[in-house]
């Protein structure tokens, strides 16, 4: 491939394509990352144990229970967190891709 292979117009077209996002792929990716993040964050606090004056482990992260019923900073809570993290990650990834694709299509018209 060298310069002569492309016409002026084609030449200009390189790198001009706009990517689309695959909602399914984004959902799975964000789901895995979200689930693992909450799982690791919870288990990390459990391994560190109580810090400072507090007798409790992870009091701030524990507030997530407000949004994720059943979640707590405990070993069983880490598994529940894995599920919630994956679920909310998947939903976010899906919505993000969906809205992104919609805007791309809209702007192309």
């Amino acid at each position: 491939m060298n310069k002569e292979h492309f016409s002026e117009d084609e030449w200009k077209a390189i790198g001009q394509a706009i990517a689309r996002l695959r909602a399914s792929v984004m959902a799975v990716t964000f789901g895995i990352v979200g689930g693992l993040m909450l799982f690791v964050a919870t288990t990390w606090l459990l391994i560190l144990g109580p810090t400072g004056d507090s007798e409790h482990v992870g009091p701030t992260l524990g507030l997530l229970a407000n949004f994720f019923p059943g979640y707590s900073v405990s070993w069983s809570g880490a598994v529940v967190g894995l599920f919630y993290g994956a679920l909310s990650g998947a939903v976010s990834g899906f919505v993000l891709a969906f809205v992104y694709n919609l805007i791309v299509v809209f702007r192309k018209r």
Partner: protein
Amino acid sequence: MNSTDSKVRCVIIGGGPAGLTAALELSRAGVEPIVFEMDKQVGGISRTVDYKGYRFDIGGHRFFTKVDRVHSWWMDILSDEFLVRPRLSRIYYQGKFFDYPLKPKNALLNVGLMEAILVGLSYLKAQAFPYREEKNLEQWVTNRFGKRLFTMFFKTYTEKVWGMKCTEIGADWAAQRIKNLNLGKAALSMLAPKLLTGKNQITTLIEEFYYPRLGPGQMWERVTDMLEERGCPVRLEHRVKTIHRDGEQVIGVTVVDGDGNEERFDADHVISTMPIKDLLNVMDPAPPVDALEAANRLRYRDFLTVGLVIDSPELFPDNWIYIHSPDVKVGRIQNFGNWSPYMIPDKSTSCIGLEYFVQEGDELWTADDEALIELGKKETAKLGLIDPDKVIDGVVIRMPKAYPVYDHGYKENIDSIRGYTDKIPNLHLIGRNGQHRYNNQDHSMVTAMYAAENILGANHDVWDVNVEEEYHEEAHAEKGHGASGERLVPQRVREASPIEILNDAFAKYDPVALGGALGTMLGFVVFLATAGLLLKGGEDAGATLALLGNYFPGYNVTWAGSLVGALWGSIFGYIIGFVIAVGINVTVSIHLGKLLRRLGVLDGPIG
């Protein structure tokens, strides 16, 4: 004609619109041409067949043109015989008639609430999970309309007409044909039609059209009479079997008549409307091998009409109906009485033409007439359109090479053929199959007018007649349908070009879209989180979340604060998304630049 007077001797091959137009133009200028038509009647594809007084077209032929000269020509010849007909054509699918072009309200009422919901869901699914590649028609249409609408209104008819799967038809075709229509616009036109009165409105088809009282054939029969009156013979059942060439000139033709008698005619000029593929095969001496092989690679789509006479004065109000039902082979049904009442001799009966798009030699093409009439009866009965017991007569009309096919490589084939024919200045190739062009009568006629003028000394380029120029009214509507029409021909899916591969690998993110998406999401998350805590209530609810106020001025865990938070969330999300997209794009561009420089195709940075 074998006489040796000083007049220009001009042989015209084919008594269709192009051949007869050229003949009349020449005779009006004092040249006496002779026309050879291999069929028993004139008109070519624009003929009207007479069967026991019932008149059938090869597909209904509307007389519509943007070329003033052609319009005046028509009016001059048939003036009072033209009818102005109202147009109605609808799509028939699963027992229901859908307006054509599609109208959302009518479509909704027809499909019912449940199906409409499924259509909506399938549209949402297509937006969420679009095909990454848009190489073929199916991917292109589905990404824009959803799979369900694609199946209902695009798939079956397109596959019937072109005999190719939608996955084999290149996406470019759809992009050209359907570009002006989208669901958003369609929905808007239903809810607020006034908003769409600008120039982008999806205009309706020409609601009326000109049509000769006795069909398009009447035009060409009249022109034939005029030629005969002027002493210019139109010889029917005379097939040109050889075109004689001497160096860079054609010098005459040999024709064979219905009884097998051969006769040679000398000529100073030969105008040919016969299929270009056949033309190269009758040249003597034979053309160079590459030109001949190129001609033999040209492909066509053929056409078959089953005419049925029905003992019922009225069937349906349409001129024609597109049949989208996948369980029958018929593609379109003409109701000739609605084109012109004069096409039907007995007013207590009706006459319809069932159109099948076929390939010469295939199962339908070779089936005997009785079997085809039976098939026609069975299919119309299955569709619920007519009572088969009321069919009192039938006839089959086969039209080979009705559609020249623009497949991959057809342009190169034409170039190769022209490399040979352009060197023969007194051989003039005109018309639809004569140039392998997908034109209507008007453009076929323009090429004929140009050729006649060239013989008289002008210097037109007959290949320069712009057939791709779409008819405004038609273009929009055909786009809406995406399947019929006589102008654009689909091409096969092709391999991705290096540019497309590069673009696919290095596609950019749209910063506004990513910003918009992340902004929308973050705005919602902050709102929902705040609202969730407020609804839950309790002492000191949301003390931690309220810390967001450090970044979002004015935010707190109250209902008003939830809105402020949503706004801030959107702004932050937008900025973050925008920056991420720009960052990715810059990185990708640097990589692309490096790659291209390494390949030696770029000197500086990417422009």
